[in-house]
């Protein structure tokens, strides 16, 4: 059952991304172009998603365990460190270059367009580079 709800989560998440316009890279670039003609749509996506999620996480923190699982697996780290900042700066640069972040890119690879496929293959390669750095160079 928890496998099915994971599938359902991905499906609803993806449909939400499509409806909100976030699978269109030119809308992302339009949001990031604050010096040009600015498209604030992404802000409203965040407002909608965060408002609903806020109540869910509040409810979740009061639960001893999730309805279909043994334990709540919420991040415990509270440390603002170099990894977090440098990693996010790198991510933002890539995000601005193409207008894709991981969710919308994955929700676009079955549309028939070749660009998201190229992006996703490169993104997985980037993730693999991270794993190698962590594994062999004890990258922290």
């Amino acid at each position, binding site marked *: 059952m928890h496998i099915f709800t994971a599938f359902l989560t991905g499906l609803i998440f993806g449909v939400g991304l499509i409806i*909100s*316009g976030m699978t269109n890279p030119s809308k992302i670039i339009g949001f990031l172009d604050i010096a040009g003609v600015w498209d604030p749509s992404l802000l409203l996506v965040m407002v909608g998603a965060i408002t609903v999620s806020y109540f869910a996480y509040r409810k979740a923190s009061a639960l001893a365990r999730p309805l279909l699982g043994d334990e709540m697996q919420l991040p415990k780290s509270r440390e603002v460190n170099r990894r977090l900042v440098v990693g996010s700066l790198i991510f933002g640069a890539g995000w601005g270059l193409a207008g894709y972040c991981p969710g919308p890119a994955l929700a676009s690879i079955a549309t028939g367009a070749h660009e998201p496929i190229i992006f996703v293959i490169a993104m997985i390669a980037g993730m693999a580079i991270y794993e190698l750095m962590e594994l062999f160079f004890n990258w922290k």
Partner: protein
Amino acid sequence: MIDWANFTPWASLAGGLLIGLATSIFVLLNGKIAGVSGILGSLIRPVKKDILWRLAFLSGLVLAPLAYGLFAVLPAARIEANSQLLIVAGLLVGLGTRYASGCTSGHGICGLARLSPRSLVAVIAFMSTGFVVVYIMRHLIN
């Protein structure tokens, strides 16, 4: 100046609410954070008991345009980047999100909804370089 021609407040708000519904289902039923980069990236060196649910989540995400297509015509996507740029961007996004333990979903939505100071720092950082890169691409190069 607001781009009124492309601004889609209601559709974006509605899509956002749906994304919120998805993250809510995932935390209340499965007890997990809907962070796309972590769910995908952790499959590279997988923990056996986590493989199936990760694949299930990703399958749902990938199949979303097909499900959407059953009811309506998919909205057009305009991609300005050429192949070389897509590759560089993909590498940076893959590396950066894993190093930072999260992307727009994990930090931008789930993290901010949990009022995590870490995620707020991440969002400010990735939006900053996003703004700078788009400024360079749109206003300095072109």
